[in-house]
């Protein structure tokens, strides 16, 4: 299996165990998800023909923009999915958004809980949460907001949402940060890279120094925005405006199309774990050659592919557009491949058809 270096307490599964569940999950999805079944049949793969989970066809993340990839015995009439998460798109254009239907939210919650706890709260049971990510009430179609909501449900003894549904700062956002810095209890700050950048640039507000043992989770890159900063600058930015030490900042990697997440376990392993994401044992990770889809040798860059058993209700095997490398079972992500848009004076016809064509 791709990932063998799980975080403590989430011990790696034996290959055979993962294989068994993966095969069962594939059987379920093959039976219930029509577009996926046709795709697999076209490739000559059926549940009975597969002996290795790596042979199970992966759907590209782009496919979530064009197909309802749902694997549920319930029809939309008898039972609506618990959630429908949409990809964020970009601020640069009218890009089509992907949708991930989640028939049962409970599986998302189960997959989220322990990896999050071990990555961010290995030493405390409850903590005050300050979120720079909108609440799930404000952004019900954001998988990230749902995740933060689950974190609050499970681990927060107090929560402040500093970003409103429209993406603007709450009126008292900076008062909250200032007040928290005057307390003794540590704080968990959750935010996207862009939110932390905005925090730094937010007018004349002075930086704060949050109490000792405070920690931050940062997620996401700068996809589709016109500004971007490097990784070390991002971490300096977080430290500058919150006072949280570099070794207390945990990077989280997740995507709308997956219900499982990966974290850099710097809180338990120290700074040497930076840029080395650990996956839970139910998330198979591979790095592939984009042209041949063969596994890249250890340490070599390729396209990242996941087999997420928590994706039971959609499709588990997902091929991303992100480049990365695997070493000792830990994943380093280099980012999204640029250039998926036309680059000359030509414009994608479909972009325009969405506005007025007959489809």
């Amino acid at each position, binding site marked *: 299996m791709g990932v063998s270096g799980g975080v403590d307490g989430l011990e790696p599964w034996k290959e055979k165990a993962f294989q068994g569940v993966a095969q069962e999950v594939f059987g379920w999805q093959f039976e219930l998800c029509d577009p996926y079944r046709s795709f697999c049949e076209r490739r000559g793969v059926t549940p009975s023909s597969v002996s290795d989970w790596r042979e199970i066809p992966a759907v590209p993340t782009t*496919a979530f923009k064009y197909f309802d990839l749902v694997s549920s015995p319930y029809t939309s009439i008898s039972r609506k999915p618990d959630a429908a998460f949409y990809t964020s798109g970009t601020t*640069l254009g009218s890009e*089509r958004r992907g949708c991930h239907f989640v028939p049962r939210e409970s599986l998302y919650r189960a997959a989220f809980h322990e990896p999050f706890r071990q990555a961010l709260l290995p030493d405390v049971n409850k903590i005050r949460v300050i979120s720079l990510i909108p609440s799930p009430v404000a952004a019900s179609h954001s998988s990230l907001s749902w995740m933060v909501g689950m974190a609050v449900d499970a681990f927060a003894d107090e929560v402040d949402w500093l970003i409103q549904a429209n993406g603007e700062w709450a009126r008292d956002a900076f008062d909250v940060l200032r007040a928290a810095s005057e307390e003794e209890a540590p704080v968990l700050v959750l935010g996207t890279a862009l939110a932390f950048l905005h925090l730094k640039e937010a007018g004349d507000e002075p930086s704060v120094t949050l109490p000792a043992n405070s920690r931050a989770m940062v997620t996401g890159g700068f996809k589709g925005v016109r500004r971007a900063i490097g990784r070390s600058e991002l971490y300096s930015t977080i430290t500058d405006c919150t006072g949280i030490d570099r070794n207390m900042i945990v990077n989280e990697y997740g995507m709308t199309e997956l219900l499982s997440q990966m974290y850099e376990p710097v809180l338990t392993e120290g700074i040497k774990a930076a840029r080395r994401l650990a996956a839970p044992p139910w998330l198979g990770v591979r790095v592939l050659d984009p042209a041949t889809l063969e596994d890249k040798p250890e340490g070599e860059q390729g396209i990242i592919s996941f087999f997420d058993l928590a994706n039971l209700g959609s499709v588990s095997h997902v091929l991303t557009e992100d480049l990365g490398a695997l070493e000792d079972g830990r994943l380093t992500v280099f980012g999204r491949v640029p*250039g998926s848009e036309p680059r000359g*004076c*030509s414009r994608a016809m*479909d972009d*325009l*058809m969405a506005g*007025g064509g007959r489809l």
Partner: protein
Amino acid sequence: MSVNRDAELGQLSETKVVLQQARPGILSRPVTEIADVLGRVGERFSDPGDQLRRTALDKLPSEAKLSSELAEVVLDGMAAGWTRESLSKLLKNEFADPALLDGLVRDQQRGNDRSLSVPSVMAVGPTLCVQISSGSVPGVGVNALIRSLLVKAPTLIKPGAGDVVLTRLFAEALRDADTELGSAVAVCYWSGEEDHELTRQAVAGADAVVVYGSDESVLSVRGMVPASCRFIAYHHRFGVGIVGREKLKGSMTHLANQVARAVAMFENRGCVCPQILFVERNGDVKVEAFAHFIAESLERLASEWPSHVEPEFADQESVVLRQVRDTIEIQQAAGSVSMLHGGLENWTVVSELDLLQLPFLPGRSLRLRTVENLEDVPSLLGEACRHIQSVGYAVAEDRVNDLAVLFGRAGASRVVPFDGMSFPPAWWLHDGQGPLRALVGWVEVQ
């Protein structure tokens, strides 16, 4: 090669002052003489023995992300419009008497009414023109430079990221050939998408601004200029192809080759490249068979004009191609499309039963859609027609004009056989307007 910003805030203002100082000099030069100098510089890019061409061919592939073979074809095609003969034709097509650009000319009598007074007229170019281009189609910046100087407008040009080399080489060679003309042009690069402040400073004080780019870029620059500024927009467009049933007979290899070349030129990044081919039903050759012919042509072209040279870019493209092809394969499994592709080569041909929304296919890609009648295509495309630029055609001679009227009324501005699709002549009506007349104002003495 990565392109770095070479313009700084503050510096652009000085550059524009210097440019404006060049205006009296170029105003005093006859336009035919200016065209002659520009043509002589332009012809160097077609001369195999000229160092200028060799330098261009050396630098173009990595900058424009084209193979050296395709870069040469692209340079030849673009430079054909930069000769003395082409520029002379351009002037004559735009102005019955090019001397209109040199001073007052007694106008032609208007209509048959002899009682109307006949004024003297002249055409006046901008006092300062700023041309902002984008993208990676090489040669657009040189065209912009030539057009500006033909109307005697001192010009600041920001080329597209993939078009800096040619624009700069032309400007430098012009300076060597004719200092006075050369001093009327400045080429500066910055990222139009990222550095709005530089764009804002660049267009300040210009009385003509030309923008080539996405609809978003055009809108953003349009909001920066005052009402008194002439604003010319070449927004994003796309090309389509139409094939009549009468052409679907006999050997299809020749037509398939023409279509494949139109697709592959500029790696399908140009608005002159067809993205979709509408093919009429009930020809002797079925659409699926025609798709195979085109696929075979694209496969052959992959050797004649290989795609990219930089492995890094090829890798990136293969990631995106993998995403898109696999997504279309799901569509194919459902029976609504059929797809042929080149595997490691970047060509893809998709035949659709219905006009579907599909992810954008990078590389040399073409979609084929069967239609009952080509006359139905404009209504099928709806408002998207407003973004059509070129319509490549293979139809019977007696259908061309009627179809051109239909497509023209829907928004297209160029209807052309496939083998002429890639390189319009210098005097073409670019996006429906005269490239020089769009830049000038008129003065009449009554």
